[in-house]
């Protein structure tokens, strides 16, 4: 029983050593913090095609890792944010961007909520107007 303790502490030490190594897999080197910020923003904005509803920053999927790597490489090569986004949109379609461009296929996505809101406002205005008109009529009716 006493012999178990050293063995256990060895295992724990090994675990302690192992965890920083594991975390290092996904570290990307950049020349400056501005590039790093851009990397974080872009990977939050790009959507993983495999595990939908996760950004590529979020996802553990193989494809998301490839996309992160490519994003990091393009940033280091000095490409602009737009160039990076275009690169992925050319391959995976508008779907891949959490901020898709406004075109005829995405217009309902952009304008839909606004349209619904306007419809709601219109309905309320009409209802209120009718209610007040009815109230006026009732007042007029009174002798």
């Amino acid at each position: 029983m006493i012999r178990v303790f050293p063995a256990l502490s060895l295992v724990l030490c090994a675990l302690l050593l192992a965890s920083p190594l594991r975390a290092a897999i996904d570290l990307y080197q950049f020349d400056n913090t501005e590039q790093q910020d851009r990397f974080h923003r872009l990977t939050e904005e790009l959507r993983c095609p495999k595990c939908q509803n996760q950004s590529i920053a979020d996802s553990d999927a193989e494809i998301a890792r490839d996309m992160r790597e490519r994003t990091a490489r393009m940033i280091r090569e000095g490409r602009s944010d737009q160039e990076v986004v275009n690169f992925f949109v050319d391959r995976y379609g508008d779907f891949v961007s959490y901020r898709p461009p406004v075109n005829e296929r995405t217009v309902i996505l952009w304008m839909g909520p606004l349209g619904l809101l306007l419809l709601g406002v219109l309905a309320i205005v009409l209802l209120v107007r009718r209610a007040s008109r009815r109230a006026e009529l009732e007042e007029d009716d009174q002798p």
Partner: protein
Amino acid sequence: MSNKNTGLWVFVPLVGFVALAILLASGLGRNPEELPSALAGKPVPAFSKPSLISGETLTEERLTGQWQLLNVWGTWCPTCYVEHPYLLELAQRGVPIVGMDYKDEDDKARDYLARYGNPFTEVIVDADGQLGLDLGVYGAPETFLINPRGEIVLRHVGEMNPRAWDEKFAPVLHQAGNPLGGPR
């Protein structure tokens, strides 16, 4: 007058509900994995990759000259095992299929083909997945139909099976006058 108005307004929620129900119902049957290929109609991106079979360097030239399938697979991909017999059947019918061994190990891939049979006329090795990225691949299996000019005509995500062939691939080939599309 007020009564007439009220009569019409009563139906607004119903109409709204029916419209929403139709919209949502049409979404139910769709496969969210099936993304429209951004590459449809575009040429296969330029590449330079080794062949699994001969070790020679292959380029996008290999995907020109005839109608052929480009099948993305890997020994790590369970669905690839499922579709493999059907790929063999297609190959037997004379459909040229170029395989793309995606993010795999060469030895495992060779064992796989030796054990289950080889439906491919050529196998491109994409060990680092960069060609896959250029093709907009996000998993395996995926199957592309490539025309003789080396352009991607359509892309099928997921298992290749008789239904996918009959509904997607055969009509295109038939329309192009290719006998592989079969008589209609």
